[in-house]
């Protein structure tokens, strides 16, 4: 059978963002995949030259629409380390709460898109209805629906009032109930299993070797979660990384579903321990030195390298996002799969191309 080349993307119904793959297929089986990136490069890192280190918070938030809170948190942690600022304990807990709300909304968005990718439209709508509750909570507590803009150097900009706390906890309870109702569909349904079990297997060794991050790595059996390093208030909360050992699409699906439930639990724990203190300390002076900050995003580990020279403007901001780390594993998974499974497979790494290209 002769080989044929099929271009996949950058415009494809399953992709929310532009990613191009040149697929070499033989008899509908993918033999080779080559990626092409660079359709949404915006040059946000370059903006450090004309925006000062405080304005950069709002800029790094816009690297990614879905995990904006974590980007700002990671950047602020880096600057705080450079300036030797001890963040007040209440601010650390509030950062955890907003970050976990972000994780819930990102994972639910993905679960919905994933269901949509293999044609399970009604599951997609059920999941997105649940997701809407978190979006409302974010708007009511932080001010904006998606780009919450709550982090600042030295702490957080807003507090969560007692009545909002009660509202969040009540909503978390409802959401948990609704998610558990859908659990059997996500885990045992014939349609879901048929399209995911045994497809796109990434072995534990390969995942490690290729530097996969986040749920892609944990779905292959490696318990690595940046939250375990105990940044913000995570060191005081009780949780274990969620790991599945199969390494296929189904395993990655389960990791994300279970992480959503874990995030609900973490929000509960954080509210139970929420201390009373001021929200932010006023930073003094200017950052100087080099630092690497790491935070666990819904898609995996994000890494910020910041270089400051004691001026208002930073010398360099380098962002390595989880999708960038997950593209080599994706290229490892694709050869050998059916052409029809390519959209589902691409979605299982939860690609965020705007993040990758910045």
């Amino acid at each position, binding site marked *: 059978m002769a080989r044929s080349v099929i271009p996949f993307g950058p415009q494809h119904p399953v992709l929310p963002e532009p990613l191009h793959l040149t697929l070499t297929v033989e008899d509908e089986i993918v033999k080779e995949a080559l990626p092409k990136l660079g359709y949404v490069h915006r040059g946000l890192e370059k903006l450090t030259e004309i925006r000062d280190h405080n304005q950069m918070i709002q800029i790094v938030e816009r690297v990614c629409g879905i995990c904006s809170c974590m980007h700002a948190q990671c950047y602020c942690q880096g600057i705080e380390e450079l300036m030797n600022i001890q963040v007040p304990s209440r601010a650390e807990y509030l950062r955890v709460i907003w970050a976990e709300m972000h994780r819930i909304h990102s994972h639910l968005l993905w679960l919905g898109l994933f269901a949509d990718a293999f044609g399970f439209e*009604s599951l997609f709508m059920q999941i997105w209805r649940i997701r809407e509750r978190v979006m409302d909570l974010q708007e009511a507590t932080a001010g904006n629906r998606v780009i919450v*803009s709550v982090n600042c150097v030295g702490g957080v900009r807003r507090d969560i009032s007692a009545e909002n706390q009660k509202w969040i906890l009540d909503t978390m309870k409802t959401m948990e109930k609704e998610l558990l109702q859908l659990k059997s569909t996500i885990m045992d349904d014939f349609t879901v299993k048929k399209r995911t079990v045994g497809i796109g297997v990434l072995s534990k060794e390969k995942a490690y070797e290729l530097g996969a991050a986040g749920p892609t790595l944990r779905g292959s059996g490696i318990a690595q979660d940046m939250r375990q390093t105990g940044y913000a208030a995570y060191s005081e909360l009780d949780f274990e990384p969620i790991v599945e050992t199969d390494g296929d699409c189904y395993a990655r699906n389960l990791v994300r579903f279970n992480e959503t439930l874990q995030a609900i639990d973490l929000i509960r724990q954080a509210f139970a321990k929420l201390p009373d203190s001021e929200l932010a300390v006023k930073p003094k002076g200017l950052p100087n030195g080099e630092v690497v900050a790491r935070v666990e995003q819904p898609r995996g580990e994000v890494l910020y390298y910041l270089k400051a020279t004691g001026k208002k403007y930073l010398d360099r901001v380098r962002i390595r996002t989880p999708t960038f780390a997950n593209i080599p594993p994706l290229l490892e998974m694709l050869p050998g799969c059916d052409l029809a499974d390519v959209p589902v497979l691409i979605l299982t790494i939860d690609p965020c191309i705007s993040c990758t290209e910045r």
Partner: protein
Amino acid sequence: MFMTKTVLKNLMTKYATRLYPFEKKEAYKDARGELKINLDKCIFCGVCKMRCPSQCIKVDKEAKTWEVDPFSCVYCGICVDACPVKCLYQENQYLAPAEEKDLVLCIQEAKAEPAAPTP
């Protein structure tokens, strides 16, 4: 099969969506929306202009004008937090869609000088 319970429940309950242009969601109290200014209090110091990450604000101290490009504003609320006299505030509704991108220019009227005491 697993969805049966959910499907039946959906048939019995109300719509999850609303008929948007006719029925709007009530805004949350603390939501960050359109940027407004209380011009009488403004001292034209220009802190909002310097802090704004999207650089959508222009302040002219001489002409006593404050100008914002509402379509460049990213609703982050940095200027509102930074304002020393707290004359900036945000509505809790987003800016309505428009056909043209207009700037909002606010000019402070000259304050009446206290009348010189007549001998």
